[in-house]
């Protein structure tokens, strides 16, 4: 049916409409998402019908099972060649099943799994009222400090809703990098954002900060998604479609002459430029790029630390996946327009994150700024616009997410009477008191700093190499300079831990359960393996480095 026909149909509103054809959905290829969504729904049912006492175990079990199953599905798809030879566009063009999708989904799932382990940790706080408690608020609706809250604590309530919320968020995250049209992009963004807003508000300690973080995250997130949506609207106006392939063709100019109806808008590059800028902004906000980064430190600090780790890892992975797909599939035709702008943003992000981090005094904020700087490094790889660029970014994301979750997991261990002792001064002399924990954290910090033989170095090397090969040598230079600046504050923490005398009233290091140990252990293993012998994973990333169109 030609566009003209549709047009007349719409204007006259008469005549019979063709039967709506049932959409053809490739359930097998969407299995990873469907499993998670299904589990999330089951989780809601569990919340509704299970007795309170049993919920925690049921939810944790369900969540872990869902993630593992979903990961198995991803592996199965990859094994079946959906990442390489059988790439395709599924769900009526809404979802792309290709290498980057599967790689990122796998990464997100693994990171989520590790994050869920830290969610489920219940041995950190001194046992109050005979109940093991986790990082989440006893009763979210209770006003902080109120009698209500005390009763909830006394009763040993926990917010087991976090698990279905997390599953919903994971489902959104899984779709986000796979989204193959702008509508799916927007919806999946909202699907993972909304649960995250809530998760941010659910910290057990320092609840005011937690709520503040949620409000800020929510308002700014909604603000940015409004921009994203307006961008989508403009883009739709320009191309007459929200499907990536179609837009890409229009941008390329390859179908310019086909459809006279669209001549008006398609000729109007302002729509394209403004629209793409606004969509970019929406994605850069999620990535945490300067100047759209300002929510990051506050939200990272206020959110419950396991959630912070989850956000910092999984959200970043998904958002970069979406950004990559947008830039590589939709907008390569106008890379002359967006590359200079992205250069500027990359430089600002690398330097801004690193510089502001220097004067931070809170470990979580420090890690937040560090994540901004790292976003800058990854952007350098994004800018390359080469297959190497894609695979280097994929590798970096994989490497980075485990370090991040591991680092935040360590943060949860260092506690004093007020909960987590996040002020840096409290970390003084940690190396003397708990050499092992400090050493592990030092490994993570060295990986952040990009010291060779850690995954951070391999990743950084990969993106810088891609950037240099893509002709962005100057970015590499800025990158190494900001790495040097960044090294300063990582090292400052190491100095503090190892070379300062412990304070008498310093924090204690909690002995966690096997869950957190696994999370941290996995972080260390991945950090070292990807540092020393990254070849296998690089292979994986480079095989996965091609987008389907």
């Amino acid at each position: 049916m030609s566009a003209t026909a549709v047009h007349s149909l719409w204007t006259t509103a008469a005549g019979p409409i063709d039967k709506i054809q049932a959409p053809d959905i490739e359930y097998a290829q969407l299995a990873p998402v469907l499993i998670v969504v299904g589990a999330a729904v089951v989780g809601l049912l569990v919340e509704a019908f299970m007795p309170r006492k049993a919920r925690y175990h049921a939810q944790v079990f369900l969540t872990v099972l869902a993630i593992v199953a979903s990961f198995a599905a991803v592996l199965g798809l990859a094994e079946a060649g959906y990442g390489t030879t059988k790439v395709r566009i599924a769900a009526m063009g809404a979802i792309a099943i290709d290498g980057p999708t599967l790689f990122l989904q796998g990464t997100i799932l693994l990171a989520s799994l590790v994050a869920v382990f830290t969610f489920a940790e219940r041995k950190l706080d001194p046992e109050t009222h005979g109940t093991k408690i986790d990082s989440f608020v006893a009763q979210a609706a209770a006003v902080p400090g109120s009698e209500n809250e005390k009763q909830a604590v006394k009763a040993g309530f926990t917010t087991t809703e976090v698990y279905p919320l997390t599953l919903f968020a994971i489902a959104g995250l899984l779709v986000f990098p796979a989204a193959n049209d702008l509508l799916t992009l927007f919806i999946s963004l909202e699907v993972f954002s909304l649960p995250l807003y809530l998760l941010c508000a659910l910290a057990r300690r320092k609840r005011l900060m937690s709520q503040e973080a949620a409000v800020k995250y929510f308002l700014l997130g909604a603000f940015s998604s409004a921009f994203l949506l307006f961008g989508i609207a403009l883009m739709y106006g320009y191309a007459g479609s929200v499907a990536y392939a179609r837009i890409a063709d229009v941008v390329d100019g390859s179908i310019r002459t086909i459809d006279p109806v669209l001549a008006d808008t398609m000729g109007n590059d302002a729509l394209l430029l403004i629209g793409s800028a606004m969509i970019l902004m929406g994605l850069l906000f999620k990535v945490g790029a300067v100047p759209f980064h300002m929510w990051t430190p506050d939200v990272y600090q206020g959110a419950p630390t396991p959630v912070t780790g989850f956000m910092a890892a999984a959200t970043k992975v998904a958002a970069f996946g979406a950004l990559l797909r947008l830039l590589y599939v939709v907008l390569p035709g106008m890379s002359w327009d967006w590359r200079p702008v992205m250069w500027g943003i990359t430089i600002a992000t690398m330097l801004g994150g690193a510089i502001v981090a220097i004067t931070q005094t809170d470990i979580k904020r420090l890690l937040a700024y560090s994540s901004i700087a790292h976003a800058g490094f990854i952007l350098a790889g994004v800018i390359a616009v080469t297959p190497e660029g894609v695979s280097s970014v994929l590798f970096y994301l994989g490497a980075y997410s485990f370090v991040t979750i591991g680092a935040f997991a360590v943060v949860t261990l260092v506690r004093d009477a007020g909960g987590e002792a996040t002020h840096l001064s409290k970390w003084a002399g940690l190396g003397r008191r708990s050499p092992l924990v400090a050493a592990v954290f030092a490994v993570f910090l060295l990986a952040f700093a990009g010291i060779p033989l850690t995954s951070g170095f391999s990743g950084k090397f990969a993106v810088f190499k891609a950037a240099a090969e893509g002709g962005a040598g100057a970015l590499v230079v800025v990158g190494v300079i900001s790495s040097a600046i960044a090294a300063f504050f990582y090292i400052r923490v190491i100095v503090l831990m190892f070379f300062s005398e412990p304070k008498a009233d310093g924090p204690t290091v909690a002995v966690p359960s096997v869950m957190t140990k696994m999370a941290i252990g996995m972080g260390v293993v991945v950090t070292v393996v990807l540092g020393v012998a990254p070849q296998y994973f690089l292979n994986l990333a480079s095989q996965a480095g091609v987008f389907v169109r």
Partner: protein
Amino acid sequence: MENLIALLIAAPLLGAAVLLCGGRRFDRVGHLLGTALAATSFVIGAALFANMLTKSVDDRALHQKLFNWIDVGGFQADIAFQLDQLSITFVLLISGVGTLIHVYSIGYMEHDERRRRFFGYLNLFLAAMLLLVLADNYLLLYFGWEGVGLASYLLIGFWQHKPSAATAAKKAFLVNRVGDIGLSIAIMLMFTTFGTFAFGPVLGSVGETSEGMLTAIGLMLLLAACGKSAQVPLQSWLGDAMEGPTPVSALIHAATMVTAGVYLIVRSGAIFNAAPDAQLVVVIVGAVTLMFGAIVGCAKDDIKKALAGSTMSQIGYMILAAGLGPIGYVFAIMHLVTHGFFKAGLFLGAGSVMHGMNDEVDMRKYGGLRKYMPVTFVTFGLGYLAIIGFPGLSGFFSKDMIIEAAFAKGGTEGWILGSITLLGAAITAFYMTRVMLMTFFGEKRWQPDAEGHLPHPHESPKSMTIPMIILAFGSVFAGGFFSIGDRFLNWLEPVTGWDHGHAPISATTVTAATVVALLLGVSIAWVMYGRKARPVPVVAPRGSVLTRAARRDLLQDDFNHVVLVRGGEHLTRSLVYVDHTLVDGVVNGTAASVGGLSGRLRKLQNGYARSYAVSMFGGTAVLIAATLLMRAV
């Protein structure tokens, strides 16, 4: 025979190694061992000498290569020795006088608890000095050159608990190092010019390069010689070096080491012969030092420093002679040898006096010692007569030859040089007479020492007097032995060459003039210090400007202090400041400014969600504007 050459060095080197590393167990026999090994070296030297005498003139040089030392690209240096007439002369002087001084030291250092180490150092010195004169290339010579410098450093500073000794040792080493720059650069120039720095090839191919290059090499060698031989402008260390034990002053700072510069110039004669400009500078340096040392020697009240001034002056003679070219080389060496005898004798005598006078060195506190120390008096007296050139004694012959040679240089230059050497002879006579009179004649002016004991002068033990006697023999007879029948000239001529020049006046006239100068000097000294009517004051009078300046080494130390020491201190201190504030400051400043920037940027993160929204809104606006702008451009 040539295999023995290495043994010359090995014997004292072994002694040094054993004595310095062997530890306490050698305390009781160390001095004997050291002396024995020094004597061994002398005996081997004598054997080699005897062997050399049996050979024909052309066949006398021996060569021994031990092994290849450095071999990099074209840079080839061997540990190899060359023993010719010139070397053997030095070998005999060094090991002979060296052995005597070892013997002397047995007595002199008897009560020093570190005597073993002293002998170790002495042996080390002998080894290094022999290496210096036996080396067959300049780099190996440099090895020995620095080795004697080290030994000299260790021995001057032997009494390290005295800050003055430690300072003097350091100064000697440093000043010598300045000279070493010269030797280093000379070797480098030789290498870049000739591709080698072995004596034979370098001296043999002098004709193949330009005179300018040879002048440069010559001047650099001269700089080295100035350092080692205490010539102006690097003479300042020698006086201070008298802080060392007296045998050291005798051996190193009178007889042997300080003459190394003369050896260097004579050895490099071929270079200087082809570089008249360099020769001229050598002569000037010699002449200036001759006068400088003599003037300083006149003003010093410290017996050793007076003798040190004299040493400087006498070496000035030698350098001057060496600068004359073939006319003077032989006489420079001859004076060097005779000087070795009488100056060593004089120093040993001075040591003997100090030994008897509670280590007092101020001549104004001596007087009338001839009755108390007869052997010392006689041997010192013979040395005195020799140095002032009393006819018939060693110094007479050797110095006279130099004066003749100076005149024989010819022209105005010859006249000027001749006059200076004559004047020098007169001054020498003056200050040496002064020393003699103040020490052995006149009233007793003895003063109690720090603990209040008056000295009880006494003759020194046999171990000290015997070497003095032997040296006195040398002082008396060596010159005559060498000169009669031109023995020394014939001996060395094959190595150094000889040219009799064209003397404007006859040898007899020169000799007569010399004697007149000598008498003049002695008389003036007698008038000033010898008459009963005018006793020598115990406290030095203020004296004229010149006297005061001369007492302070003609203000050279003051110059050094103000310009080099003070200036250097200021320089280093300001550099430390610069390093801290500027070089490091830039680094720290960069860090601080990044930190400052961080502090300011941090303020943007003000906690208000709305301002974050502003940043996002603005960012988007910029993003859009930039994208549009990019298209427009």
